[in-house]
Protein backbone atom coordinates (compact mmCIF):
# COMPACT_ATOMS: atom_id res chain seq x y z
CA UNK A 1 0.00 0.00 0.00
CA UNK A 2 1.11 3.53 -0.65
CA UNK A 3 2.33 5.33 2.44
CA UNK A 4 3.52 8.78 3.42
CA UNK A 5 5.70 9.20 6.48
CA UNK A 6 6.62 12.35 8.35
CA UNK A 7 9.05 11.31 11.07
CA UNK A 8 8.76 14.43 13.19
CA UNK A 9 5.53 14.97 15.08
CA UNK A 10 6.78 18.31 16.43
CA UNK A 11 9.55 20.56 15.19
CA UNK A 12 10.61 23.67 17.05
CA UNK A 13 13.00 26.24 15.59
CA UNK A 14 13.92 29.81 16.40
CA UNK A 15 12.85 32.69 14.19
CA UNK A 16 15.36 33.21 11.39
CA UNK A 17 16.70 29.65 11.55
CA UNK A 18 16.44 27.27 8.59
CA UNK A 19 13.70 24.68 8.75
CA UNK A 20 13.24 21.35 7.01
CA UNK A 21 10.13 19.22 7.39
CA UNK A 22 10.76 15.69 6.23
CA UNK A 23 8.45 13.63 4.06
CA UNK A 24 9.07 10.18 2.61
CA UNK A 25 6.73 8.10 0.54
CA UNK A 26 6.47 4.54 -0.62
CA UNK A 27 5.40 4.16 -4.23
CA UNK A 28 7.36 2.74 -7.13
CA UNK A 29 5.73 4.85 -9.83
CA UNK A 30 5.57 8.58 -10.43
CA UNK A 31 3.37 10.12 -7.78
CA UNK A 32 2.11 13.64 -7.42
CA UNK A 33 3.31 15.19 -4.18
CA UNK A 34 1.77 18.07 -2.27
CA UNK A 35 2.32 19.97 0.95
CA UNK A 36 -0.76 21.18 2.82
CA UNK A 37 -0.74 23.54 5.78
CA UNK A 38 -3.24 24.25 8.54
CA UNK A 39 -2.77 27.48 10.46
CA UNK A 40 -4.47 27.91 13.82
CA UNK A 41 -8.26 28.13 13.46
CA UNK A 42 -8.07 27.96 9.65
CA UNK A 43 -8.96 25.25 7.18
CA UNK A 44 -6.41 22.95 5.63
CA UNK A 45 -5.02 24.55 2.49
CA UNK A 46 -2.56 23.77 -0.27
CA UNK A 47 0.93 25.16 0.27
CA UNK A 48 2.71 23.85 -2.79
CA UNK A 49 2.87 20.95 -5.23
CA UNK A 50 5.93 19.38 -6.79
CA UNK A 51 4.78 19.73 -10.38
CA UNK A 52 4.72 23.52 -10.10
CA UNK A 53 8.28 23.79 -8.83
CA UNK A 54 7.26 27.00 -7.12
CA UNK A 55 8.21 28.79 -3.94
CA UNK A 56 5.33 29.76 -1.72
CA UNK A 57 5.84 31.95 1.37
CA UNK A 58 9.54 31.20 1.03
CA UNK A 59 9.01 27.44 1.17
CA UNK A 60 10.33 25.05 -1.47
CA UNK A 61 10.19 21.29 -1.85
CA UNK A 62 12.11 19.08 -4.24
CA UNK A 63 10.97 15.65 -5.27
CA UNK A 64 13.81 13.15 -4.94
CA UNK A 65 12.68 9.96 -6.62
CA UNK A 66 15.84 8.10 -5.68
CA UNK A 67 15.27 8.72 -2.00
CA UNK A 68 11.45 8.84 -2.38
CA UNK A 69 11.42 12.09 -0.46
CA UNK A 70 9.70 15.45 -0.75
CA UNK A 71 11.13 17.49 2.11
CA UNK A 72 9.82 21.02 2.72
CA UNK A 73 12.44 23.69 3.33
CA UNK A 74 12.66 27.35 4.22
CA UNK A 75 15.95 29.15 4.79
CA UNK A 76 14.66 31.61 7.41
CA UNK A 77 11.64 30.62 9.47
CA UNK A 78 9.12 33.24 10.59
CA UNK A 79 6.75 33.12 13.57
CA UNK A 80 3.77 33.13 11.21
CA UNK A 81 4.99 29.83 9.75
CA UNK A 82 3.89 28.08 12.93
CA UNK A 83 1.27 25.58 11.81
CA UNK A 84 0.54 21.95 11.11
CA UNK A 85 2.09 20.69 7.87
CA UNK A 86 0.91 17.62 5.97
CA UNK A 87 2.66 15.91 3.11
CA UNK A 88 0.29 14.21 0.66
CA UNK A 89 0.60 11.80 -2.25
CA UNK A 90 -1.77 11.22 -5.15
CA UNK A 91 -1.09 8.29 -7.44
CA UNK A 92 -2.80 9.65 -10.54
CA UNK A 93 -5.61 11.97 -11.38
CA UNK A 94 -8.86 11.11 -9.71
CA UNK A 95 -7.42 8.77 -7.19
CA UNK A 96 -7.24 9.05 -3.50
CA UNK A 97 -4.88 11.44 -1.74
CA UNK A 98 -2.81 9.75 0.94
CA UNK A 99 -1.74 12.05 3.76
CA UNK A 100 1.13 11.76 6.17
CA UNK A 101 0.52 12.08 9.92
CA UNK A 102 1.60 15.73 9.93
CA UNK A 103 4.34 17.76 11.58
CA UNK A 104 3.57 20.62 13.91
CA UNK A 105 6.06 23.42 13.31
CA UNK A 106 6.58 25.87 16.11
CA UNK A 107 8.71 28.93 15.35
CA UNK A 108 9.92 30.52 18.54
CA UNK A 109 10.65 34.24 18.88
Amino acid at each position, binding site marked *: AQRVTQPEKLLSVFKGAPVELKCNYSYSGSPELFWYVQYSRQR*LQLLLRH*ISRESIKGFTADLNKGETSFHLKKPFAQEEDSAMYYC*ALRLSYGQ*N*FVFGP*GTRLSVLP
Partner: protein
Amino acid sequence: GAGVSQSPSNKVTEKGKDVELRCDPISGHTALYWYRQRLGQGLEFLIYFQGNSAPDKSGLPSDRFSAERTGESVSTLTIQRTQQEDSAVYLCASSAPGHDNSPLHFGNGTRLTVT
Protein backbone atom coordinates in the same frame (compact mmCIF):
# COMPACT_ATOMS: atom_id res chain seq x y z
CA GLY B 1 -16.18 32.52 -4.73
CA ALA B 2 -17.60 30.15 -2.13
CA GLY B 3 -15.38 27.41 -0.85
CA VAL B 4 -16.28 23.96 0.41
CA SER B 5 -19.00 24.23 3.01
CA GLN B 6 -19.68 21.66 5.73
CA SER B 7 -22.54 21.46 8.17
CA PRO B 8 -23.01 21.33 11.02
CA SER B 9 -19.73 22.77 12.23
CA ASN B 10 -20.19 21.00 15.57
CA LYS B 11 -22.31 18.03 16.52
CA VAL B 12 -22.69 16.44 19.92
CA THR B 13 -24.64 13.19 19.98
CA GLU B 14 -25.32 10.35 22.36
CA LYS B 15 -23.79 6.97 21.79
CA GLY B 16 -26.08 4.83 19.67
CA LYS B 17 -27.69 7.69 17.75
CA ASP B 18 -27.34 8.20 14.01
CA VAL B 19 -25.75 11.35 12.58
CA GLU B 20 -25.62 12.93 9.13
CA LEU B 21 -22.82 15.21 8.05
CA ARG B 22 -23.19 17.37 4.99
CA CYS B 23 -20.69 18.67 2.45
CA ASP B 24 -21.28 21.24 -0.29
CA PRO B 25 -18.28 21.18 -2.63
CA ILE B 26 -17.09 24.01 -4.82
CA SER B 27 -19.41 24.32 -7.82
CA GLY B 28 -18.14 22.30 -10.76
CA HIS B 29 -15.80 20.12 -8.71
CA THR B 30 -16.55 16.53 -9.69
CA ALA B 31 -14.24 14.84 -7.20
CA LEU B 32 -15.22 14.84 -3.54
CA TYR B 33 -13.38 13.30 -0.61
CA TRP B 34 -14.17 12.55 3.03
CA TYR B 35 -11.43 12.32 5.64
CA ARG B 36 -11.47 11.82 9.39
CA GLN B 37 -9.05 13.47 11.79
CA ARG B 38 -8.94 12.18 15.32
CA LEU B 39 -7.46 14.39 18.02
CA GLY B 40 -3.71 14.66 17.63
CA GLN B 41 -3.63 12.39 14.61
CA GLY B 42 -3.33 12.79 10.85
CA LEU B 43 -5.96 12.59 8.14
CA GLU B 44 -7.59 9.22 7.65
CA PHE B 45 -9.16 8.64 4.22
CA LEU B 46 -12.76 7.46 4.30
CA ILE B 47 -14.28 7.62 0.81
CA TYR B 48 -13.92 9.41 -2.49
CA PHE B 49 -16.53 10.25 -5.15
CA GLN B 50 -16.02 10.89 -8.83
CA GLY B 51 -19.31 12.38 -9.90
CA ASN B 52 -22.01 10.48 -8.02
CA SER B 53 -20.17 7.18 -7.86
CA ALA B 54 -17.64 6.08 -5.26
CA PRO B 55 -14.76 4.21 -6.91
CA ASP B 56 -12.90 4.02 -3.62
CA LYS B 57 -14.70 3.47 -0.35
CA SER B 58 -11.93 1.40 1.15
CA GLY B 59 -11.44 3.75 4.08
CA LEU B 60 -14.90 3.41 5.59
CA PRO B 61 -14.12 1.88 8.99
CA SER B 62 -17.25 -0.25 9.35
CA ASP B 63 -20.68 -0.86 7.88
CA ARG B 64 -22.03 1.77 10.25
CA PHE B 65 -20.50 4.34 7.90
CA SER B 66 -22.03 5.19 4.54
CA ALA B 67 -21.94 8.12 2.15
CA GLU B 68 -23.80 9.26 -0.88
CA ARG B 69 -23.60 12.05 -3.36
CA THR B 70 -26.32 13.41 -5.60
CA GLY B 71 -26.35 15.73 -8.58
CA GLU B 72 -22.56 15.68 -8.63
CA SER B 73 -22.87 18.14 -5.80
CA VAL B 74 -23.86 17.67 -2.18
CA SER B 75 -22.57 14.69 -0.27
CA THR B 76 -23.83 13.23 3.00
CA LEU B 77 -21.78 11.05 5.34
CA THR B 78 -23.98 9.00 7.64
CA ILE B 79 -22.79 7.27 10.78
CA GLN B 80 -25.27 4.85 12.32
CA ARG B 81 -25.29 3.78 15.96
CA THR B 82 -22.44 6.13 16.82
CA GLN B 83 -19.69 5.00 19.16
CA GLN B 84 -17.34 7.07 21.25
CA GLU B 85 -14.44 6.20 18.96
CA ASP B 86 -16.28 7.97 16.15
CA SER B 87 -15.51 11.28 17.84
CA ALA B 88 -13.32 13.25 15.43
CA VAL B 89 -13.29 16.10 12.96
CA TYR B 90 -14.75 14.98 9.64
CA LEU B 91 -13.25 16.86 6.72
CA CYS B 92 -14.63 17.14 3.22
CA ALA B 93 -12.61 18.24 0.22
CA SER B 94 -13.26 18.67 -3.48
CA SER B 95 -11.12 19.06 -6.57
CA ALA B 96 -11.66 20.31 -10.10
CA PRO B 97 -12.14 18.04 -13.09
CA GLY B 98 -9.89 17.79 -16.07
CA HIS B 99 -6.86 19.35 -14.47
CA ASP B 100 -3.80 17.28 -13.76
CA ASN B 101 -2.44 17.86 -10.32
CA SER B 102 -5.63 19.58 -9.25
CA PRO B 103 -5.28 20.10 -5.49
CA LEU B 104 -7.85 19.47 -2.82
CA HIS B 105 -9.91 22.32 -1.42
CA PHE B 106 -10.99 21.60 2.13
CA GLY B 107 -13.97 22.61 4.18
CA ASN B 108 -13.74 23.67 7.81
CA GLY B 109 -14.86 20.28 8.97
CA THR B 110 -17.55 18.96 11.30
CA ARG B 111 -16.42 18.27 14.84
CA LEU B 112 -18.36 15.23 16.06
CA THR B 113 -18.45 14.40 19.75
CA VAL B 114 -20.11 11.19 20.85
CA THR B 115 -20.94 11.14 24.54
